[in-house]
């Protein structure tokens, strides 16, 4: 076996296995490339749904929508997640990475699979949306590419588990793994279930597209497919929560308020988050209310409890760290004095707030069987998940990139003044996308629908004029989001390929006195609960949550009058 070569990071003091570093770079770069492609398709979709623009013809619209979902939701997110897994295991544990050859094989499978599926979509015979529900049938290589990608990502997860074992055996850390690594472990566990479910359902579907299997039961497909489709969103949540903790630790030296409570919150994810897959089948006949309500309500609320714990714990940890540094005036001095001009911080904080307010609240509302019926399959759904997976996950991953560029790529972040504004512009655009789509969905506008005017339809149907207004605003928000995304791509490409090398120690935003490695790569709690500012923020969140939840029940009572 070849000998592992390390370098020592001058900023964090962490020992870095160079093959882990190369793998992180490769996966992160692939991720960003697919974000660029997928983002462009997203923009074209949004411009098509802007009635006054109506950019693409119908067949191209569905092709672009399929490519958008595929490239951003699967490829961008999962490539980046694999980079996060390697970072949180090999780097944070000071360890060598397990089986680098396998990790490269995984990368090749993912990249090859991703490209094959993209080709299938662009050839035009596979505009089946990324959900590919039978009886819609795509070209065979559409499924084959997805299967290769899933197998590759699964291998990546096992490299992560292997690295955990190596680190423990070689005693590169003491006691328990750090919280960020524990969050990544949560993501990896959910990923195993996710990718296995994906393979289980896509293999027979692929055989069906070849003609070797005569029939795929649509309901059975939906059931198993969503074990992948939904759970993969829970990989995202776990990964971006881990990143919130990582950024808080790296920028503020923040320790979690309580290791025990944060880890228990991750355990709630491991046990319950994946069951919420059932919310995608809430209007399906043939499944009992017991199954639906158990999986979406009882289990999901436990998982939501986990998210609320993190939502308190992450800002709380930052507040405690800032107060320890002397920002003690009033309730919010700690927050005012935060490094708002540092895109790693602003991206992370916007991600935290928007994930909670936009994605979180709407998710609980839609996960409730009774009120779900009002927005099922409307634009409310993409409105919700652009709050979770774009405002939450994508923005968190962007924020993390601003730290990976100097620490892992050893390059200075290019165009610093552009970088300063990037999270705000992207965040603003995405908040608009999310809110306007939710608004239009509340008025009944369907998702995945090319023409809301129904020009060539045999029946006349008119949405209220507000719906048109909202779709126009949505198109403008999409332009803002796309510009913010483009800024990110330009900054990353310029920094990574043409950036000035970083050789010395760099200063992360708020020097905390203790080495960064001690904050991000070790076990330990902040040991204080004096976080009045965070409690106020959480209070605001709960008020918004409760009000919105009850407003929706009130709507429901109007939809279904009981007289």
């Amino acid at each position, binding site marked *: 076996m070849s000998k592992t070569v390390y370098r020592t990071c001058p900023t964090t003091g962490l020992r870095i296995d160079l093959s882990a570093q190369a793998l992180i770079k490769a996966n992160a770069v692939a991720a960003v490339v697919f974000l660029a492609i997928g983002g462009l398709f997203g923009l074209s979709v949004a411009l098509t749904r802007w009635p006054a623009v109506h950019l693409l013809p119908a067949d191209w619209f569905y092709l672009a929508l399929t490519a958008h979902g595929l490239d951003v939701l699967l490829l961008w997110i999962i490539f980046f997640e694999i980079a996060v897994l390697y970072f949180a295991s090999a780097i944070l544990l000071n360890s060598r990475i397990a089986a680098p050859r396998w990790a490269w094989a995984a990368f090749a499978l993912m990249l090859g699979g991703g490209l094959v599926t993209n080709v299938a979509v662009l050839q035009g015979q596979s505009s089946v949306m990324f959900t590919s529900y039978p009886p819609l049938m795509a070209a065979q290589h559409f499924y084959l590419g997805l299967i290769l990608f899933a197998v590759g990502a699964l291998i990546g997860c096992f490299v992560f588990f292997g690295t955990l074992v190596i680190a423990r055996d070689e005693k590169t850390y003491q006691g328990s793994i750090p919280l960020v690594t524990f969050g990544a472990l949560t993501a990896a566990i959910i990923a*195993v*279930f996710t990718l296995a479910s994906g393979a289980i359902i896509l293999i027979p579907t692929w055989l069906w597209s070849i003609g070797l299997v005569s029939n795929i039961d649509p309901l059975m497909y939906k059931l198993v497919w969503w074990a992948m489709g939904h759970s993969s969103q829970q990989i995202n949540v776990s990964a971006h929560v881990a990143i919130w903790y990582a950024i808080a630790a790296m920028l503020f030296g923040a320790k979690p308020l309580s290791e*025990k409570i944060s880890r228990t919150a991750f355990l709630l994810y491991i046990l319950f988050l994946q069951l919420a897959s059932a919310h995608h089948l809430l209007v399906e006949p043939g499944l009992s209310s017991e*199954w639906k309500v158990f999986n979406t309500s009882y289990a999901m609320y436990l998982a939501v409890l986990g998210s609320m714990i993190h939502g308190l714990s992450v800002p709380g940890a930052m507040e405690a760290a800032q107060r320890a540094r002397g920002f003690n005036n009033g309730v919010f001095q700690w927050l005012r004095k935060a490094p708002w001009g540092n895109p790693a911080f602003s991206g992370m904080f916007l991600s935290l707030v928007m994930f909670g307010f936009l994605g979180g609240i709407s998710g609980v509302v839609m996960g409730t069987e009774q009120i779900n019926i009002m927005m099922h399959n409307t634009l409310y759904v993409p409105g919700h998940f652009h709050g979770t997976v774009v405002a939450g996950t994508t923005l968190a991953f962007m924020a993390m990139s601003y730290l990976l560029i100097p620490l892992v790529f050893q390059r200075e972040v290019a165009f610093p003044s552009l970088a300063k504004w990037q999270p705000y512009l992207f965040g603003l655009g995405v908040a608009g996308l999310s809110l306007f789509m939710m608004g239009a969905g509340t008025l009944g506008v369907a998702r995945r629908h090319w023409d809301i005017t129904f020009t060539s339809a045999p029946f006349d149907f008119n949405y209220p004029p507000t719906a048109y207004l909202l779709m126009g605003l949505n198109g403008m928000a999409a332009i803002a989001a796309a510009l913010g995304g483009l800024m990110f791509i330009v900054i990353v490409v310029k920094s990574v390929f043409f950036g000035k090398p970083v050789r010395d120690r760099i200063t992360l935003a708020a020097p905390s006195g203790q080495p960064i490695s001690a904050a991000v790569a070790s076990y330990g709690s902040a040991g204080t609960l004096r976080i009045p500012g965070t409690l106020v923020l959480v209070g605001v969140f709960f008020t918004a949550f409760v009000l919105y939840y009850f407003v929706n029940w009130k709507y429901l009572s109007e939809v279904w009058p009981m007289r």
Partner: protein
Amino acid sequence: MSEIEPAPDQEPLRIPFMQRVLDNHFLLLFLGVVVPTVLYIIWGILELVQIPVAP
């Protein structure tokens, strides 16, 4: 922290039960796969196969 040698007159270091569970990564992996497989997939499939086939 099992590697810490307890001083001869001390009780061996007791790690709380929950912490041992959380440190057992493969137990967590097992739970994270089995719980949704049973409650979501298997329970769901059992309901689907009971739907009578249309004549």
